[in-house]
């Protein structure tokens, strides 16, 4: 293990701590803005998938299938090179935000669609009978009921998105993992593999672990409640 216990290697990390802070900042910034984009796309396409119009359903289906069945790395490369070779390169972070947002948006759309479909059909009909408009029906009746089904998988999707910021590496990389990699392979800073990777891994773990724990606890509570309600019905 190169330098796991050597004070010099750990000291180097401390001296260059700015690299890790910068990487963390970039990762969080990319993830935060991409999340907003993903939420927007997810809501739009999720609602389209649950609407009655066939054309809207088809558009949403095509978007979800195409994005979910191709790797994020490919989408990111495609976006980056297509923009670069046509002469308007927007920079690594913006490319990352767009690619991650579009990719995660497809998963959000599926999560939201499943959440809305979990609400019994009668609720929609009742709201329609009471004269609710589409927006107020969604806002007052459907969303409040589906939010508890939507939130756990949505949190998982967010965790995956934070992990996926590491994909930026392939287009040049400014995120935490890429900067860690260039730190350990750099000419002046190189060598201290073990300490640098430990720092990077711990940072990722500290961000993702609470989120994924919350999500799975939530999900288990929901499942238990569901099982109980099924038993009661029987």
């Amino acid at each position, binding site marked *: 293990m190169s330098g796991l216990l050597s004070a010099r290697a750990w000291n180097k990390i401390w001296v260059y701590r700015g690299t890790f802070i910068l990487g963390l900042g970039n990762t969080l910034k990319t993830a935060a803005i991409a999340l907003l984009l993903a939420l927007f796309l997810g809501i739009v396409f999720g609602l389209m998938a649950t609407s009655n119009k066939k054309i809207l359903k088809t558009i949403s289906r095509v978007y979800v299938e195409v994005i979910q069945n191709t790797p994020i790395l*490919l989408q990111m490369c495609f976006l980056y*090179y297509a923009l670069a070779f046509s002469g308007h390169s927007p920079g690594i972070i913006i490319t990352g935000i767009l690619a991650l947002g579009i990719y995660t948006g497809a998963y959000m759309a599926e999560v939201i669609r499943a959440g809305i479909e979990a609400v019994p059909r009668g609720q929609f009909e009742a709201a329609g009978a009471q004269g609710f408009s589409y927006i107020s029906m969604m806002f007052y009746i459907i969303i409040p009921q589906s939010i508890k089904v939507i939130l756990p998988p949505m949190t998982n999707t967010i965790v995956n998105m934070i992990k996926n910021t590491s994909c930026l*590496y392939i287009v040049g990389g400014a995120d935490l993992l890429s900067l860690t990699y260039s730190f350990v392979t750099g000419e002046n800073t190189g060598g201290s593999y073990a300490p640098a990777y430990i720092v*990077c891994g711990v940072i990722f773990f500290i961000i993702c672990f609470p989120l994924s724990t919350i999500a799975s606890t939530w999900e288990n509570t929901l499942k238990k409640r569901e099982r109980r309600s099924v038993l009661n019905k029987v």
Partner: protein
Amino acid sequence: MSTLGGSLSMLANPAIIKFILNGVLFTIIISVISVFFSVIIGTVLALMRNYCDKKKLLPIKMFSVTYIEMFRNTPLLFWIFICVVFCPCPKFIDQAMFGLSSVNNKLMFKAAVALILYTSGVIAEIVRGGLNSVAKGQIEAGRSQGFNMVQIMWLIVLPQCFKAIIPTLLSQIITTIKDSSFLANVAVIELMARTKQILSAANRYNGLNSINVSDVFVLFGMAAAIYFIINFTISMTVRKLQGKRKVNYGKVRNNNFQTVRSDG
């Protein structure tokens, strides 16, 4: 329009097509091998996490919990980088074979190890979901019939568990095929890396001495189409299986557990 013609002419080049198709083969082989080993490791981890509650066995449970949470909450690329540096590689892999150089074989082995380690953490959680769906009475019934714990698991619980999670495991193959593209970060072996490499040399092949936007669209479009065809076929199979299940089991069971695919 002429640049598009040049880009399309690359697809008629038999050397390029062979290079890409070999990449597709490597993508599939790496994914299938990874899922195979991950299912084995993941099952062991899930059993360790679920059934090692006795005080003596608690360290085993702690190990499994640590492993699963560690790999689920850090990126795959992180483990690929670590394995490329630290993972030992057996001698017989470190040589030129399968049409790859010895360096590439070594990298492929190390990256595949990372992929297996990472995927087994994910699969462990899937298997655990399956184990939890098996009714508790099954274990008690087995015990009352004089089965020991290993027999109960092997003969009673695991068959039921795997029957319940087959659709989820199949969708995990899709995720693994997508994840195998991360190998493109360290070596030129599979589809993604090969597409990228051809793009970087496109000026030599398209007869125009320059790389154009149309090259990007044609090459990545083709790679995306290949990924799409493979993954969409699997996801259609999954949906068919789930449709059958709904008829068999009734709609209540696992309804939002399996219909939404999770990523990674």
